Structure formats: C-alpha cells, structure tokens
C-alpha cells in the first residue's frame, strides 16, 4: 500500500503479513506512517494504492464498511468518543441497539451488553450509565477496547488493530489488556499492535515489522530479534534505552512548599520542592496525580494548611500561573492542550503571546517556534502546518515545546512522553535535565513507572487523593514503588 499527503509520501509501497493467532508489532519513529497504514486498512483514509489478500483471495477494501465486513476491528490512536452520551451507548456505537417490540430501544439490554463487554476486559468498576466524557483517561481507553470487542453481528472478527492502546494506561490496566490479547490470540484472531514501549512489545508480540519515514525497513520474529536491533532498525543508529543521569546537584532555594494542605479533592499534602528538584507523583489510576498538578495551575482551592510558590501564595488561575513561570503539559493533548486546526507556530507560542507585546510579531513567533520545535525534534512540514495533520507523537512534542519556551521555574508534566518514540523521549529527558540544572523544579506524573524512577529524585505516592508516602528514589525498583500504591504504613 502507498499513501502521500500533498505529494509528500507518508507510506511508500509497504507490505504487511498478518497471521491468525499471532500478535504482530508495528514499530517506527513518530511520523513513520504507522497510524496512516492503519487508517488505510480501516478504509477511513483513501489510499493511493492498496491490495489486500485474505486467505489467498483478493479482498475489496474501499471504505470503513468493507473493513468491518471483512472482520477487521480498530482502536485508533486518537480516541473518538461521544462525550455527552453514556458509556454503554459509546460501546455499542454504530451497531443496531437491542430493541423491544421491534422498535423501542431496550435500555436494560444495552446496559447488560456493555457491561458484559467490559467484564470480558476485567474492567467491572466502570459505570456504563455515566457520560463517556466524565471517565478518567484509562477508563476511556477501556471503553474503546470494549467497543471493539463487542461483535454481536454475524461476522466474527479476524483481526484486531490497536494503535498505541497503552499510552494512557497504568501498569495494572495494561495487564488487563494483555490478558485479553492472550485470549483473542487463543481464539485464532490476528492482532496488529502499535506501541512505543519496547518492553511490552518484546513481551506480548510474536512478529515485528519496522517502518522508517514511510518505508518498510525490516520484518522478523520477535524471538529472533532484540531491543538493540529494533531500535537500530527504527532510528538507523544505535541508541541506548536509558535515562540521562542527574549531573548538577539539587539547588537550595525553595520553589514551592505545602504544609498540611487540604483542598476540595486532595488531602494531607506535605512537601517542599527545591530548585532543580524533580518530584514524581505516582499511584493507582486517578489517585489525584492530575489534581495535584492542577493545584499549581490555580485550578484548585487550598482549604487548610499553608501553601506557597516562590514565597507567595499559589497561582490563582492558569494565566497567573504561566505569568509566574509555571509551565504545564496537560494529560490530554487534543482536548486540553492543542488547537488542532491552527498552525504549529500558533500552538507553540500560545501561552507566551503576552511576551510579544500588543502587536503580533509573526517573524519572532516563527523564530521561536522553529527554535523550540527543533529542541524537541519536531517533524512537521513547516511552522504553518495545522497540528491536526501531525502524527500523534509530534503533536505531543508541540505541547512540550510550548512548555519549555520562556524558561519555566516550575514545570508540571502530566504524562509528558505519551506517544513519543524512544529517540525523541531521550531528547525530552535531556531537556528536562537541562532545565533542572538551570534551577527549574519539575513535578512529573506518568503511568510509565520506569520513567518516574529514571527521572525523579523523590516520589510522592498518592492514594485516593491523599498523600500516602514521600519516598527517596534511592535504589527503588518498579516493584518496590508499586507495593507502596497499596500499603498504608509509611515504611520510609
């Protein structure tokens, strides 16, 4: 198959072989063409050329209906949910809803069908009557997976395609997904799996195809390859999959301090953050990590206790926060961070517009967008390209570029490397280290525990909105950290 956007090839004559009962990994750097390939097989994007063969005979594939009829099911990288509608309806979206007397929708049945699909995943805690938009990020993904699993219709699915499903899932949630993948595999379905997390690829996949700049690079069985080989194939160079070490000691100035702070949804916050320190915030899904970051953005109210930022009170609003050199990467790039129809340039400089004075200065904006875009290894066709056209990882880099512009004093990172490829991840970590060396304090939360352990000096563990532990990084392993998500007595 091939596909070019405006003359620029995103996918050049790539071939992919998928066999039943096997999990096939598709890897490549950001913008390599993985999501484009998937959209071609899903029939949602018009290919320049494509030929599909199934069981030896050619298969017509002109639109999304054809793909569905052929038994292909998709979970795309960008979640398309209908936020106002209930979880149950989202799960059964596009299917005929169960009817009573042939016309009235049988809501009880809708509910049970949706619940069954979620139960198959093991996600029994999700309330299917809630509006989908109110679900936490991880549960939204669970809902999408459940939606792809529901197949009440005549044709049995033969292929599942998952585009970065674990990017927003906690370890525990990922395990549920892997478990389902095992079961689907046993049933003889083929699975195409995209992820930037190499460790999980090595664990759950059987075969791997690597793309680079829209071209096929290599294909192999997982057992015959290694992490080093894969990275080599993806990037064309050797790469160490590691975290850069701290080189400059933590400063002495206090950037922020919280003493016995309670807010409307957080309790018992007690910590002091020094210049250059990197503090991790960790815990089970939705334990209050995001709210803690938002507190520093002026999106929470201190009810009791003493809280200060740079010896004054906490920022009162996001605009106050940015003005006082707090930079923020929200969790959901598309909903909370980007204006998808607007240019790369406009999106990068957005929080810093007041630095340009009253009149817009396009040439300066351009210069800054190029500078900071370059720092995060952004791949785009220019600073006027709409960010909606960028690959998922490159959209995330825009949000990061925005945060490092203007030398922040406090950097709030909520899942900062979500969907970013290994090479670019390393560059982002280097940037974080550089900022920290210059005295910027960082608060980082991530579902990727090795990332938290690799970057942070201390880790604050939250349990149901309460600060439960404040741990020194020391020699802690992921397993040690994980055990603190559950136990209550502070061992440290």
């Amino acid at each position, binding site marked *: 198959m091939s596909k070019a956007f405006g003359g620029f090839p995103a996918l050049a004559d790539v071939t992919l072989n998928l066999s039943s009962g096997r999990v096939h990994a598709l890897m490549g750097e950001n913008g390599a063409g993985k999501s484009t390939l998937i959209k071609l097989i899903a029939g949602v994007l018009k290919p320049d050329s494509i030929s599909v063969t199934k069981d030896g005979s050619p298969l017509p594939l002109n639109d999304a209906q054809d793909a569905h009829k052929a038994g292909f099911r998709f979970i795309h990288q960008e979640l398309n949910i209908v936020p106002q509608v209930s979880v149950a309806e989202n799960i059964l979206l596009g299917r005929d809803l169960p009817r009573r007397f042939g016309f009235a929708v049988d809501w009880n049945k809708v509910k049970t069908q949706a619940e069954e699909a979620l139960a198959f995943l093991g996600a029994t805690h999700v309330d299917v009557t809630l509006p989908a938009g109110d679900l936490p990020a991880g549960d939204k993904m669970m809902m999408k997976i459940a939606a792809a699993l529901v197949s009440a219709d005549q044709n049995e699915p033969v292929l599942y395609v998952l585009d970065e499903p674990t990017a927003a899932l906690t370890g525990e949630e990922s395990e549920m997904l892997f478990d389902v993948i095992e079961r689907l595999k046993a049933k003889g379905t083929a699975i195409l799996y995209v992820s930037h997390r190499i460790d999980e690829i090595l664990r759950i996949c059987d075969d791997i195809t690597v793309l680079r700049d829209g071209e096929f690079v290599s294909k192999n069985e997982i057992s015959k390859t290694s992490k080093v080989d894969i990275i080599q194939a993806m990037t064309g160079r050797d790469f160490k999959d590691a975290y850069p070490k701290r080189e400059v000691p933590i400063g002495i100035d206090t950037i922020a301090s919280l003493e016995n702070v309670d807010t409307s949804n957080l309790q018992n916050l007690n910590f002091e953050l020094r210049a250059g320190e990197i503090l991790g915030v960790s815990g089970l899904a939705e334990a209050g990590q995001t709210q803690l970051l938002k507190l520093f953005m002026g999106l929470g109210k201190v009810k009791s206790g003493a809280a200060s930022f740079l010896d004054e009170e906490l920022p009162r609003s*996001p605009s106050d926060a*940015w*003005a006082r050199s707090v930079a923020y990467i929200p969790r959901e790039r598309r909903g909370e*961070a980007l204006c*998808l129809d*607007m240019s790369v340039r406009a999106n990068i400089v*957005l929080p810093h*517009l007041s630095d340009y004075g009253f*009149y*817009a200065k396009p040439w300066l904006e351009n210069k800054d967008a190029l500078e900071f875009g370059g720092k995060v290894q952004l791949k785009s066709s220019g600073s006027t390209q709409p960010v909606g056209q960028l690959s998922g990882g490159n959209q995330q880099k825009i949000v990061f570029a925005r945060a490092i512009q203007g030398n922040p004093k406090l950097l709030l990172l909520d899942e900062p490397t979500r969907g970013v490829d290994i090479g670019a991840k390393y560059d982002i970590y280097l940037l974080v280290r550089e900022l920290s060396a210059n005295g910027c304090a960082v608060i980082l939360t991530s579902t990727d525990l090795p990332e938290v352990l690799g970057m942070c000096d201390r880790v604050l563990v939250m349990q149901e909105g309460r600060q439960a532990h404040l741990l020194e990084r020391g020699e802690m392993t992921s397993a040690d950290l994980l055990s603190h998500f559950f136990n209550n007595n502070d061992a440290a």
Partner: protein
Amino acid sequence: MMQKLRQSGTLLGFVLILLFFALKLPDTFLTARNLINISQQLSMLAVVATTMTIVMVMNDFDLSVGSMASLSGIVAAMIFTAGYPVWVGLSAALLVGVLGGLFNGFLVSVVGILPFVATLGTLTVFSGMAFLLSDGKTVFGRDIPASFSGFARAGIEIGDIKIPMLTITAGLVIFICWCILEHTNFGRRLYAIGGNKEASHLAGIKVVRLRLYAFSLTGLGAAGAGLMYAARVASANPTQGSGLMLDAIAAVFLGMTMSRRGEPKVIYTLVGVLILGVLDNGMTQLRVDSYVREILVGLIVLAAVAVASLSKLRQA
C-alpha cells in the same frame, strides 16, 4: 486542489454575478456613480458584519445586533429631541452599544448560556427597549439635527467623484477590525479560543474576559451602524435595524467558505458583504420582486456553504 476550488468557488461566483449584472445593465451598473451608491448602501452592513466577525472567530454568535442598531438610533434621537447637542446623543448611543455587548458577553461567558440562546433573549430585550423609549413611533423631522443627518450626505471629493462619509466610516471600521484580528495578540487569542476553549484556558488565556471584550466590540459596532442608518434616513424607528442581523451572519458565513481552514476573516467577510450588496443593488435595478430577491439570496448563501462543507468532507 479540492481546497483551492473550495476557497476560490465563492470568489468565482462573485465575479460571475458582477459579469451578469454588467452585461444585463450595461449603462447603469458598472458606473462610478452606481458603485459609490452600492458602497454607501453597504456601509451599515459592512460595519455590523465585520464587528460580528470578532465574536464569530471564537465560535460565538450575536443575534442581537439588529435590535441593538435600532435601539442605538432611538437613544440618539430621543436625546436630540430632548435638546442635547449632537455629540451627547452619539456618545450615549455608542455607550448603550458597549453596555449591551457587555451584557451579552456576561450572559455567555460568565453565566455560561449558549450564545444562540443568550443573544436571542437580548434581541427581544433591546427591541422592547427601543419600542418603550420611542413609544413605538418614528422620530423624524425637526427633532433630528441637520448636522447629524448631514453627515450621511457629506463626502470627500476626489476629482469629480464624491466618496460618501458613510463609506469612509465603514472603511475605517473594517480596517480597525482587520488590524485587531490579524495583527494584534488580542486577535490571536480570540482565534485560539475559537480553536479550543479548554486548551486556551489551560494555556493561560483569559477566556472569560476576552469574550466579554469581544462581545462589547460587536455591540459597539452594531450601535455605530444604527447611528449611520439613522443619519442616512434622517429618522429613527424601533425596527429599522432588524434586517441587519441575518445579512451580517450570512456575510460572515459566505466569507468562511473562502478562508483556508474555514475560519472567519475580516477580508473575506467584506467579500461576503459585497456579494450581498451587489446582488441587492443589481436585482433592484432589474426590478426583481423583493420577495424573490430574498429567496435568491438565501439560496446563494446555502449553496456556497453547502459546497464548502461538501468539499471539506471529501478532503478528509
């Protein structure tokens, strides 16, 4: 390719309309006199439509501009009647525009009512106030000072052409709106709010405050257009602005079919205004029945918007 076609389609239609009238009305249509006449007829709509663009950039709406224009004319006329000097009447009318706009903005961004609903409400409120103040009557004759209505008849002579003051005023307003939206960071922020409100808020943009400002500018524009109208007809009545709202929104929509990503832009709004104005002028000269005219204008707007959204679908 598709994109180019979509963008230039409306412009092409405009050129065809011009050609059509030029051929049908060889002696009267493309004359300096008629073009100047069109520009004067259009000046009120141009002011309302370009200031309307300011809120539409944020994906908001203002349905109350027409009744605000009526109200401002009435306010000025009542103050003239009471014997105050012209500048007092003008300032009061413009102030009413700003306050009315602020009230719209308050309902939309502080209270959080959908713009469609909020401004539909204020549409009737403003209209009711205009009736109440004027007692439902038209104010005209000696109550309207000559220095006020004279403005609409004045102009700047260049050679043997006289450019009307109303046209010049509209030109100034268009220029200011263009500067605001395209060349200030205030305008940049409004576009960002239109792109994604939540993201703009989290990126430190004062969304609530900016929406208030934007609505008050639209109110100010509507009030200004109301004064221009009152000066032109040397009278004020509580319904004279009511046609402006639909035309203004239609002009912005026509303009949106021409911009790259379908966002409203002042320059394109101006083209939309010209299309509507030229159609109106040409068909009047051809003695097309005014009801038929309305049907045609409606169909043309629908066609342009339909073509634009269809080609957008195809492109995706």
